[in-house]
């Protein structure tokens, strides 16, 4: 039964992708898309309780379960959102049914790829999976076929492929380091073997490998200065894809980085991976914080906020230690939920206002109270104000950092305040003041947006003990 769960997480999306490639009608395929995502989520959730025995290729451990469940959940809610959203896109003629078939197939393929990356026990396999995920998202970003969309996809593709190449080189280096210890052949790439033998590997080789892996997968995570693809890809692709990108793909790439960080941490001779991640995290945070100020496009704005938060998360994991790691995990979860909720909201707003430019969206709380106040709430959440979950993680990161490395906390807080100012400035323009024309009612479903916000709110006030212990356990694993 349990092994089935593991396979199901992979097979359901794969088969669904194949099926959706054939189904013509977009309404049917949208429904099918939701059903498949739901099934995947059920399977993923069951992984939480019954742990299948892993093999040389696949296996699930406490760390990956967190990511799998999260991505399956966001995948589900996003598919629900996309079902109603995409319909509207077809009606206004931005998409053709043919493209939609492609879109849905790609959506499931993406879920498949990400789940594969998360359950892969083989670093080569993980690499393949992440690359697959990248290519599918490239396709989806380009789906509108506008100049900007293609340009964004092209930029994304080029940068991503370079990242992939670097990551592969890093993977090879890891194998080279492992091979004398673990032995040649397949075992040299099996995660469970590597982590055991990491202590005896050549540290210098591991360092080199980590440099490449950090840059390679870091490109996917969107850390500055490797971030360039992220804002445009978010801004030009369909909104559900923006949600998935920010909510899932970045996490999966981060997951890969974390894996190798654990590898390095296990080796006494290797350079501490923490400082590298802390540096890149701070650079991303502060850079993105300043970039927020001059954004004209609402989706690009929140894309930059994703960079900022990825920076915070990288910083937290770089700090390490039970508190910071816990905070990192929490922040990642909360950011996925909140950011995708924001993108759902932005999707609605863009539809009712018929515009994506911040200048054309004003006074939402007057014309669309629900959308406006939800946007205000979710921006406050993403800016790290209580009673939302992100406040908890920022609280833990900042306070524990200041207690350990006061000098590191200063730039961190600086970046957070700068970013807060920018977000608040934009929010006040978007949600308040004299409203801009465009009073059409939003037709897509609010359910996913509310669901995410409810979760984030709950987590901010009350955090279930079960999940707490789970996160604490994982935080200890991460060292």
């Amino acid at each position: 039964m349990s092994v089935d769960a593991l396979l199901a997480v992979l097979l359901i999306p794969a088969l669904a992708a194949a099926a959706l490639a054939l189904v013509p009608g977009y309404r049917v395929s949208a429904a099918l898309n939701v059903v498949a995502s739901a099934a995947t989520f059920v399977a993923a959730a069951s992984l939480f309780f019954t742990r299948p025995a892993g093999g040389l290729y696949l296996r699930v451990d406490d760390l990956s379960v967190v990511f799998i469940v999260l991505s399956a959940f966001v995948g589900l809610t996003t598919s629900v959102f996309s079902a109603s959203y995409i319909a509207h896109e077809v009606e206004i003629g931005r998409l053709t049914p043919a493209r939609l078939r492609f879109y849905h197939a790609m959506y499931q393929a993406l879920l498949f790829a990400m789940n594969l990356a998360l359950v892969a026990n083989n670093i080569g396999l993980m690499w393949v999976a992440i690359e697959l995920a990248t290519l599918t998202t490239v396709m989806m970003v380009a789906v509108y076929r506008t100049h900007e969309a293609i340009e964004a996809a092209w930029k994304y593709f080029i940068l991503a492929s370079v990242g992939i190449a670097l990551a592969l080189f890093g993977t090879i280096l890891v194998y080279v380091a492992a091979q004398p210890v673990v032995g040649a052949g397949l075992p040299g790439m099996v995660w469970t073997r590597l982590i055991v033998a990491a202590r005896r590997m050549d540290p210098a080789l591991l360092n080199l490998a980590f440099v490449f892996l950090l840059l390679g997968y870091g490109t996917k995570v969107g850390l500055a200065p490797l971030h360039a693809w992220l804002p445009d890809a978010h801004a030009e692709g369909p909104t559900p894809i923006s949600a998935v990108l920010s909510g899932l793909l970045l996490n999966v790439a981060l997951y890969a980085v974390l894996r190798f960080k654990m590898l390095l941490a296990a080796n006494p001779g290797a350079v501490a991976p923490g400082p590298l991640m802390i540096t890149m995290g701070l650079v991303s945070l502060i850079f993105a914080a300043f970039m927020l100020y001059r954004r004209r496009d609402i989706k690009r704005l929140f894309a930059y906020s994703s960079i900022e938060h990825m920076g915070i998360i990288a910083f937290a994991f770089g700090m390490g230690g039970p508190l910071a790691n816990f905070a990192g995990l929490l922040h990642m979860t909360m950011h996925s939920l909140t950011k995708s909720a924001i993108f759902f909201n932005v999707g609605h707003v863009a539809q009712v206002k018929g515009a994506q430019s911040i200048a054309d969206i004003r006074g939402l709380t007057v014309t669309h109270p629900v959308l406006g106040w939800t946007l205000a709430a979710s921006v406050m959440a993403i800016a790290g104000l209580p009673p939302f979950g992100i406040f908890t993680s920022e609280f833990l990161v900042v306070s524990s950092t200041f207690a350990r490395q006061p000098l590191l906390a200063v730039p961190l807080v600086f970046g957070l305040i700068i970013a807060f100012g920018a977000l608040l400035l934009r929010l006040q323009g978007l949600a308040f003041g004299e409203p801009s024309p465009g009073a059409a009612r939003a037709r897509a479903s609010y359910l996913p947006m509310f669901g995410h916000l409810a979760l984030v709110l709950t987590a901010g006030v009350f955090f279930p003990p079960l999940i707490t212990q789970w996160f604490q356990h994982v935080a200890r694993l991460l060292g």
Partner: protein
Amino acid sequence: MNALDVLLIAAAALLALVPLALAMGQSPAGRWVIYGGSLAICGGALASALWALRRAASWDAVLPLGLPWIGARFHLDPLASAFAVVVSLGGALSSFYALGYGRHEEEPARVLPFYPAFLAAMSLVVLAADAFSFLVAWELMSLSSWGLVMARHREAGNARASFVYLVMASFGAFSLLLCFGLLAGPGGAYAFAQIRAHPPGPATAALALALAILGAGSKAGLVPLHVWLPLAHPAAPSHVSALMSGVMTKVAVYAFARIVFDLAGPPAWWWAVAVLVLGAITAVMGVLQALMQHDLKRLLAYHTVENIGIVFIGLGLALAFRAAAMPLAAALALTAALFHVFNHSLFKSLLFFGSGAVLTATGERDMDHLGGLIRGMPKTALAFLVGCIAISALPPLNGFVSEWLTFQAILLSPQLGWWALKLAVPVVGAMLALSAALAAACFVKAYGVTFLGRPRTPAAEAAREVDGFSLAAMFALAGLCVCAGVLPGFVIDALSPVAHGLVGGRMPEQASQAWLTIVPIGEARSSYNGLLVLAFIAASAGLCALAIHAFASRQARRAPAWDCGTPSASPMTQYTATSFAQPIRRVFGAYVFAAREQVEMPPPGDLSPARFEATVHDPIWEGLYAPLAAAVALAAQRLNRLQFLTIRAYLGLVFLALVGLLLVLALWN
């Protein structure tokens, strides 16, 4: 069920009002439900807080919320109960006021949901006993008040006000966050009990103090962190302005007292110097800025800054005495500070209520468009007058008592051994006296220009008395001001457990003194009896009136004002707020805020009117905040170029990063 439970339940009930308000925000019944509900809840909370203060005991509670491994901890000790009294009293009265005032709200749906949340957040801050819950409540307080400031989001300037407000608030929150992180240590022992168990070392404690000043000071409005206050407080609806000025700033004072007196361990003497100097500067800057205003609500907001300065002077003295191990004197200073906190929450709420009444009656906040309201709205005028006397620290009202106590504390300070303090304290005393005198001047101006004289506009002419709820609330506060002024002994006694808890000493019991006199230290040293003073004034005034009416003529005749034989028809020839402040502007303005006056005289024969323009600047805004904003904007603009590079350039970035890291490795090998 103990007092803490009651207060927590009250907070929960207030939070429960929020969804209700969302539901019925539009309907007229919403006002009654929400404000009536808050009134009832705050009343209950007030009762239990008073009872707890009387009992001088302390209770604990832990809820399974917040940080899972710590839980949401709450604690009610005398300090907390004292501030809970302030919070719930202010909340109850402003809810009562709002029952009438809220009728004039254009968009009640934007006010009603935030109002109970604001009240709940403030009381939770006072009750919280671990860093996390404290900060959650703290931020919730900022957030809900931000929403209330944003309620009038279409009015010009409010957006900027609320922006500055929330950014400063988050700055303060981060400072507090760092402070708690420092006190809690890397292990994350966030519960106040744990922090108390392991007091920090001197260096850590000093850093914590600095951060506490930044965090609490930015919320309380310490100069130079005050810039948001005169923008945000007036922008909110008046009953909220009263809460923000009268109560929220006090919550910030609570945070400071909690951290510095309770958590940060024994103080070093120079802490007192820092706090004293900041307080003195704040007091004088605040009142001088207030004198320059002609917007009534902004004037009041600047006075909040001044009073916060006075409170911090008291706290600084308490710190000094505590460092010098003089518990009695410390208790006196601390009691003076807390007494002033209580008083200010009373008369500042009263004054903001009054300004709200003026606003509803005339639609004007600019004093230069008002005048003569004492005829249209005599009751409001009377209540407002009481508030003015109280805030001007004139006997026999309450403002005088707390400042008198502060002076008594200052007179004890020569016993302090440190030279810096010996030099600082007298100057601080002088600045305190200066600010008190200037405050009186400022309120002569505020009251004279707004309520006295002749109406300057038709709106002022047509002003009529406001509704009963507002008046009742104002007179309740006025009555409290008088009571606290003539019977200060009871307040002092009520505060003595707080002082005992924080500085280990307590003032002699006052209620048992003959004639209800207050005697801070000793009979021979100093004593004051508000009751007798009031009685004497009343008696002699009455006596004089009687005598006059017995012997002198009673005839009175109405006639045009004489005005040295040159009566002027137009009421615009009266002194305005600006012209009233001119002498003081000439005396202090040049130094403090680069006041400039230019007169444009038309050439002879030209019939165009001459123009007189007086401009004052806030040196702190222009010297500190404007450059910061400019720097951020510049950085954003420079960095923004990175958005428009070619793909090749981005690849170049990746390439450079790679090469850089490789170089690092090469060197590291």
